[in-house]
């Protein structure tokens, strides 16, 4: 690889010395890459990309219609750093974290830094991140900053400087973990032989720190990870970290404050929460006392914190220090609080609120990088060298109008790092995000980092939002590396727990609908497969009217009737068509994403694959020729395999807890409703070609074999209806679904277990009785060419099943769905 790569000579390079030789700490790695060869490297890269797709590693790009769940962009080449170099950086980072923690305690307490004039008032009082209601808080153990991250750049002399401090709720440590897992699978031998330091000890320390925050005498504390939800940029990471750390992933509406304590709303009860790891910005965490328009948080949370019944990490208000305006003041703050010199410098930063700095900045504007000094929404840094004369003048005027709102940073001629792009090695600028966790009264640094690279060789902006990529970061140790992993705890004591009722109501709701949507999509595929089987069958041409009945049931069509197979295929795979598959798969896919931490990796893969195949089909199969119908059929068969796998997994691999019950109940209700409606559509009217429809009905309802075993070739409507509706031994019949639903209902947590007290159970019992007492033969007898009694009966069955669905929602999900809102305020006159 060394010969593939010619770094830009103008700047320093991570891998190559200015004389063109490979730097010592890269030699082993580069040698191993050369051994692999170019083709092998490419196939490893493909494997990495496949792993990313299959594991659903995504991040969301805002303001972009295709930006939702973009696959994560990982470069195959890690950034290598020798442990000796990293140790030096780590020492500086630890000092910085201690300093920022002390500063937070001061800002929300005695404010000596203000009183002694170490920092100007603007940094606090003009800073939206300063949350006045948090003033006077006393977080447990004096820890304000539990998790801290710093973005580092490497200067021409090889030293690192801090570009920005992340104190709000640093993101990316989960992605760096995922990067590591993928690279260690794709490049296993290199990973082993290079002596890469493991990440797990860092996460173990982080878990201990969070557990120690729990209010006194709470053994086995309950810790939740609070996420803004699936539309957040890094939702994947939230779900991933929650699962990795063993925390419950919750949204604000899953929590409630009662008696000044925070509780998780589960099906069974309210469960006390001791510690909240928040990925929601602090100002959005309590609409009562903080930003009132946000309901991402929990009303009343601040009082619970003041009472000490719950701890939040990072402490509320920590975002204040994310303001770049603090950077120039850190050296004097370090002397003020720690009586030490700042070890790890920031990139040279000028705060324009200082008059001398302002004069310097205005003079050198064309050379500097201008940023907002205090938190503002969505403002990118401005590079002076990219601006025209008039733009520079406009910028200068803006700065002069409100100098304290701006900082300027010296541009850093940073190092370049090699990246592998489509088999070629190129160089990119990069920023290393390092992570720290509080440990007692100091900090520990993650031996690794999330390295992000620019999206183009001449670009200076590192932004995943703009399409830049990421790298794993290997800290190369000198000795043997001990095996520690959170993924497979070898000797850690396990706390035994049995599938209890700690299922959050919202999650139960989502699982229920996941079941319904998956089944709905499966029903579409079954019917479509049945139609396409017949489209290629010459026998079908003899039954054109019956064929049309089937097609009508499959498609909700507009003005023109699709008649040919290619036309029908086009509708099925069109992205926007209401009868298409895309809509059905989109619906379950969205839910599956929210439930990432609740369904198994295999379940996720199955659903992800179906969704992806549907999307691919849109391109591949929308325009097929008449003689390519086999391809369409193949695709439907693939889908069916997926659905069967999902059903099998739900049946065989899920523990019989509440999660499974709600998922299965959704599946069964939808299946029952689907069967009732299909029979009604096909048999309400008497057809001359009825045998053809009965046959299709049995095939779609997956009951052909059972029927033939009982009745051989005799196709009778009453026998078919009996098998599909009332036969409790046929796993596809409505009666069979209902039996399962009754069983589930009986096992749900409720105040009274007596069926008579619960409307949903009553309803199910009533429906079962109806099914048992109905004379199927009688209602299937046609009168004047119609089966009105059958039609009426089936619509009642479908309605009653929907009613059960509604009752379950009301009884079990309702309090999750009710969102809080603001009381009207009184005006002063």
């Amino acid at each position, binding site marked *: 690889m060394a010969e593939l790569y010619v770094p830009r000579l103008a700047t320093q390079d991570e891998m190559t010395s200015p004389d063109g030789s490979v730097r010592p700490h890269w030699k082993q790695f580069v040698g191993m890459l050369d051994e692999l060869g170019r083709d092998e490297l490419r196939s490893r890269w493909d494997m990495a990309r496949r792993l990313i797709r299959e594991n659903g590693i995504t991040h969301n790009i805002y303001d972009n219609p295709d930006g939702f769940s973009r696959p994560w962009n990982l470069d195959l080449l890690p950034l290598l750093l020798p442990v000796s170099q990293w140790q030096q950086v780590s020492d500086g980072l630890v000092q910085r974290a201690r300093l920022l923690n002390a500063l937070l305690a001061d800002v929300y307490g005695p404010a000596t830094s203000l009183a002694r004039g170490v920092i100007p008032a603007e940094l606090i009082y003009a800073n939206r991140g300063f949350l006045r209601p948090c003033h006077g808080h006393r977080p447990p153990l004096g820890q304000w900053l539990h998790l801290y991250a710093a973005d580092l750049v490497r200067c021409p002399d090889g030293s690192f400087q801090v570009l920005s401090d992340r104190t709000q709720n640093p993101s990316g440590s989960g992605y760096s973990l995922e990067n590591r897992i993928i690279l260690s699978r794709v490049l296993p031998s290199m990973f082993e032989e290079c002596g890469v330091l493991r990440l797990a000890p860092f996460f173990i320390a982080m878990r201990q720190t969070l557990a120690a925050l729990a209010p006194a005498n709470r053994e086995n504390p309950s810790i939740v990870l609070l996420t803004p939800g699936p539309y957040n940029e890094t939702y994947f990471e939230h779900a991933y970290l929650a699962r990795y750390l063993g925390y419950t992933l919750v949204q604000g509406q899953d929590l409630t404050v*009662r008696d000044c304590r925070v509780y998780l709303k589960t099906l069974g009860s309210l469960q006390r929460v001791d510690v909240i790891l928040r990925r929601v910005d602090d100002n959005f965490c309590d*609409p*009562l006392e903080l930003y009132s328009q946000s309901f991402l948080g929990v009303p009343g949370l601040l009082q619970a914190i003041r009472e000490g019944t719950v701890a939040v990490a990072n402490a509320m208000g920590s975002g204040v220090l994310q303001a770049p305006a603090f950077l120039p003041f850190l050296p004097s703050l370090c002397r003020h609080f720690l009586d030490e010199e700042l070890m790890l410098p920031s990139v040279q930063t000028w705060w324009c609120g200082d008059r001398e700095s302002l004069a310097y900045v205005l003079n050198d504007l064309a050379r500097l990088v201008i940023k907002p000094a205090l938190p503002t929404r969505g403002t990118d840094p401005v590079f002076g060298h990219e601006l025209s004369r008039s733009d520079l003048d406009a910028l200068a005027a803006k700065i002069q109008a409100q100098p304290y709102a701006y900082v300027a940073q010296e541009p850093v001629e940073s190092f370049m790092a090699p990246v592998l792009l489509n088999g070629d090695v190129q160089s990119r600028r990069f920023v290393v995000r390092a992570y720290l966790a509080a440990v007692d009264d100091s900090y520990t640094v993650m031996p690794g980092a999330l390295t992000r690279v620019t999206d183009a060789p001449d670009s200076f902006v590192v932004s995943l939002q703009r399409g830049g990529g990421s790298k794993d970061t290997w800290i190369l140790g000198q000795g043997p590396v001990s095996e520690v992993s959170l993924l497979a705890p070898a000797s850690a004591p396990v706390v035994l727990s049995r599938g209890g009722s700690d299922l959050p109501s919202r999650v139960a709701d989502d699982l229920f609908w996941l079941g319904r949507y998956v089944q709905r999509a499966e029903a579409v595929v079954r019917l479509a497969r049945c139609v396409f089987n017949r489209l290629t069958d010459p026998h079908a041409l003899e039954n054109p009217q019956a064929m049309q009945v089937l097609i009508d049931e499959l498609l909700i069509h507009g003005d023109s009737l699709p008649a040919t197979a290619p036309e029908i295929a086009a509708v099925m795979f069109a992205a926007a068509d209401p009868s298409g598959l895309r809509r059905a798969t989109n619906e379950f896919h969205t839910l599956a994403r929210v439930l990432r931490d609740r369904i198994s990796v295999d379940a996720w893969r199955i659903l992800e694959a179906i969704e992806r195949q549907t999307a691919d089909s849109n391109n591949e199969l929308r325009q097929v020729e008449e003689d390519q119908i086999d391809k369409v059929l193949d695709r439907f068969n693939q889908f069916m395999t997926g659905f069967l796998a999902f059903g099998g997994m739900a049946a065989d691999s899920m523990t019989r807890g509440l999660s499974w019950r709600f998922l299965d109940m959704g599946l069964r209700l939808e299946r029952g409703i689907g069967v009732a409606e299909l029979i009604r559509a096909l048999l309400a009217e008497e057809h001359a070609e009825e045998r053809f429809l009965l046959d299709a009905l049995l095939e779609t309802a997956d009951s052909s074999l059972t029927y033939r075993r009982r009745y051989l070739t005799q196709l009778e409507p009453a026998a078919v209806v009996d098998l599909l509706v009332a036969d409790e031994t046929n796993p596809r019949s409505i009666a069979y679904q209902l039996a399962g639903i009754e069983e589930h209902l009986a096992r749900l947590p409720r105040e009274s277990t007596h069926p008579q007290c619960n409307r949903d159970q009553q309803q199910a019992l009533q429906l079962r009785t109806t099914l048992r007492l109905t004379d199927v033969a009688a209602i299937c007898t046609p009168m004047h060419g119609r089966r009105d009694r059958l039609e009426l009966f089936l619509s009642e069955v479908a309605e009653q099943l929907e009613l059960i669905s509604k009752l379950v929602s009301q009884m079990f999900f309702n309090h999750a769905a009710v969102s809080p*809102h603001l009381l*009207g305020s009184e005006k002063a006159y």
Partner: protein
Amino acid sequence: MRYKVRHSTEYYYGESVPLCHNLIHMSLRQTARQQLSSSELTITPLPSARHDFVDFFGNPTTWVCLQEPHDGLRVEAQSEVQVDVPAPADTPQTPWNDFAERLATDTSLYAQKEFTFASRLVELSRELAEYARPSFPPGRPLLACIEELTRRIYEEFFFDSSATTINTPVLEVLEHRRGVCQDFAHLEIGCLRSLGLAARYVSGYFATMPPPGQARIAGADRSHAWMSAYIPELGWVDFDPSKGTSVTDKHITIGWARDYEDVSPLRGVLVGGRRHSMIIGVDVEPLEPLVEGDDQRSGD
């Protein structure tokens, strides 16, 4: 002057509300010219949890949680208070622009400086500075400048309770020259802050006189608001732009902060009860005869 002040806020939800959290700023603040002899805040139904504390700005604050289903909420503050006329002082001569410069550079004034920045309901702008400018010629003493600005707002703006809501931006008030006391307080605060001066919002009541020959109608008063400016040598001095004057012993203070949002009398988040109605009753009862003042404008 002694008063008995009663302020009640009642909400009717129209449906049962299972959970409601409130933050209340209705208890009077003890100040240099305002002595409380009693102060009581009653919440009905009885809250499941209640905490009385002092907020960041030093205002008495009450946090309550109602977690039993209820279909209404009543919060009533009752207090007896002695309010004095602000003591006359020497007229300070510091030119306003000298003080603005000091605020900008002297780090020992950090506490005052907090009130020079924009807040959510008071954005700063060139328009506000321009409006204030005629009253602020360079070299004129700060006190005189603010007195004139207060008078101008009183004369140039119309009381119109239908013109604004709680969220009407100050610039819109400036443009239409209409609003209520809360808008005028925000406007004057915005003017001063846009010139680099320190100003804060004061929430309270104003004791009104019944028309001559008529008896006082209990419960017919309303909340009032004005503003306070920092003047070197004097400290914080209150001015009432809806009266055009500095404050008197008819101004009773609840508390102060950056703007209305920090000290709104009652803030609440509830589950259910989306279509609620609100009834406010304020009664400021003088416990000694009120002296005829210059509160010419009725209704505000």
